[in-house]
């Protein structure tokens, strides 16, 4: 009998749990530890944030799904990993602290034979003074944040209806943020809502981003083959901004937010402020605060985790300049070095470096979009590690690991630009691979598979993915046939 513990119930952890339960006999246990009682299809939070979808349509309770599938569930947060066990027992263990109302604050040491860290991001609003729901800006990172963002947006629309001009700023709240795609989606959904409300002409809409160029999306941009010509995501994205009249401020590091005022610095070292009536800024991500201890209770956190809080895996973490970055630097198995029963997937693994070229402002401030590792790649990583663990349990510890490098796998990114079955639109992009490989492809990616297109069909795709992935996450019949 083997015990598998998964920390986190987001796309990556939940996918791993469902596949492990499918692949393993009932004599083995699969246990998920998540501080949240609900699963959230985060890509649709964008629509909650503009009032096009209710919160209840993007979340569902995890416990009934896990009960039905025979997966153990602890509503708790992990606080420490003990990969070599403790003085009492040499089996690996993880210390958890319950977060549900009945057992809040109580702790448990959970033993494991195999552990997957899929803890996702810690939303670091504190990185920028005054940012976030506790400060002066909104967020769409959680369903509750998105509900609040919509309330504020509606209030601004009401003011606009009185004929009073308003400034709406959407973007990234720090120079090292990731998930530029989410801010891109939100700014165009806000633009769409303002048009639908008939108040767009009174609104100034500004996209404030750490990307050095439009269309970077934290993946160094893309080159598309369009009707026999190479075109860039920068040109393509710029066209949409111009068409919709959305202003863009690029290469920005937001340093402070006050009531109605954002302070930021740009790559040339100049500092600026912009007044706002509504602002949605994505925070930078960090790893969740997990400690690690050896069997003698010595702190080995720095050995297991990178300073960012993300877990080190089988990547090449040698510090080297952008020009020397290679596809091979990226992890393939997601196993923690030195351990054959510990993995980190999704946002929880420490990337070897950014994908987009990092830059410094003239004052030395780092402006470096962090690599996105959500959605499709996240699910693939979860499934890959689940396959590795299932093989090792069923066929022996020497079974080779399954692999899924972000420098090999592709991803589809559908960035909504407005909701509506006949009036909506989205930028639908595919890229292969996610991490560009300039040794293999002259443009870094396979031009046949790296494409971008704008139109109503993109909205249909995003809506289809919404229903498909919620169906899959609920483990309804045939869920495993829906690809990650």
């Amino acid at each position, binding site marked *: 009998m083997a015990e598998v513990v998964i920390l986190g119930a987001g796309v990556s952890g939940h996918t791993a749990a469902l596949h492990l339960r499918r692949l393993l006999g009932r004599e083995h246990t699969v246990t998920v530890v998540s501080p949240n009682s609900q699963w959230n299809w985060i890509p649709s939070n964008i629509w909650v944030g503009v009032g096009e979808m209710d919160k209840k349509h993007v979340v569902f309770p995890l416990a009934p799904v896990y009960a039905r599938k025979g997966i153990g569930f602890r509503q708790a947060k992990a606080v420490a990993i003990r990969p070599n066990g403790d003085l009492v027992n040499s089996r690996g263990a993880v210390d958890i602290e319950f977060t549900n109302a009945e057992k809040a604050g109580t702790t448990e040491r959970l033993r494991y034979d195999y552990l997957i860290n899929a803890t996702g991001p810690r939303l670091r609003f504190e990185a920028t003074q005054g940012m976030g729901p506790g400060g002066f800006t909104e967020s769409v990172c959680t369903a509750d944040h998105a509900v609040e963002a919509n309330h504020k947006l509606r209030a601004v629309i009401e003011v606009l209806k009185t004929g009073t001009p308003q400034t709406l700023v959407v973007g990234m709240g720090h120079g090292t943020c990731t998930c530029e795609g989410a801010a891109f989606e939100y700014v165009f959904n806000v633009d769409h809502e303002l048009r639908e409300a008939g108040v767009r002409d009174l609104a100034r809409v500004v996209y404030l981003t750490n990307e050095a160029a439009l269309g970077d999306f934290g993946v160094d941009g893309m080159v598309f083959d369009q009707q026999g010509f190479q075109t860039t995501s920068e040109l393509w994205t710029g*066209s949409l901004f111009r068409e919709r009249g959305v202003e863009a401020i690029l290469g920005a590091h937001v340093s402070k937010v006050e009531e109605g005022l954002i302070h930021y610095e740009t790559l040339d070292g100049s500092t600026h402020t912009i007044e706002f009536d509504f602002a949605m800024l994505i925070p930078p991500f960090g790893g969740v605060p997990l400690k690690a201890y050896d069997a003698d209770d010595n702190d080995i956190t720095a050995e297991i985790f990178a300073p960012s809080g993300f877990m080190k895996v089988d990547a090449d973490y040698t510090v080297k300049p952008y020009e020397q970055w290679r596809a091979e630097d990226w992890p393939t198995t997601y196993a923690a070095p030195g351990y054959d029963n510990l993995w980190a997937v999704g946002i929880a693994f420490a990337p070897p470096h950014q994908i987009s070229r990092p830059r410094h402002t003239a004052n030395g401030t780092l402006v470096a979009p962090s690599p996105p590792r959500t959605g499709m790649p996240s699910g693939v990583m979860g499934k890959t590690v689940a396959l590795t663990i299932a093989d090792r349990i069923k066929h022996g510890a020497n079974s080779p690991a399954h692999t899924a490098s972000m420098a090999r796998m592709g991803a*589809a990114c559908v960035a909504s630009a407005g909701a509506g079955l006949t009036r909506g639109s989205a930028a639908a992009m595919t890229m292969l691979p996610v991490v560009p490989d300039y040794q293999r492809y002259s443009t870094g990616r396979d031009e046949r598979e790296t494409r971008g297109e704008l139109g109503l069909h993109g909205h249909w795709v995003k809506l289809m993915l919404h229903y498909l992935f919620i169906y899959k996450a609920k483990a309804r019949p045939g869920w495993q046939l829906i690809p990650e």
Partner: protein
Amino acid sequence: MTETIHNPTDPIADLSKSPLPTGKTLKMRQSLPFQFTRFLSFNGRIMRMVVKGHH
């Protein structure tokens, strides 16, 4: 296209060279029959990606 009012002190990106879509392009982006074909095509691409790239 929406008329934008720039604050002269803000370092707004110059997008005046970005190509604007033609009227025909805008119409095709919302055309139900044409968009249905693009929907099928995009789904085909996603499935190719799953087959080729998920390893």
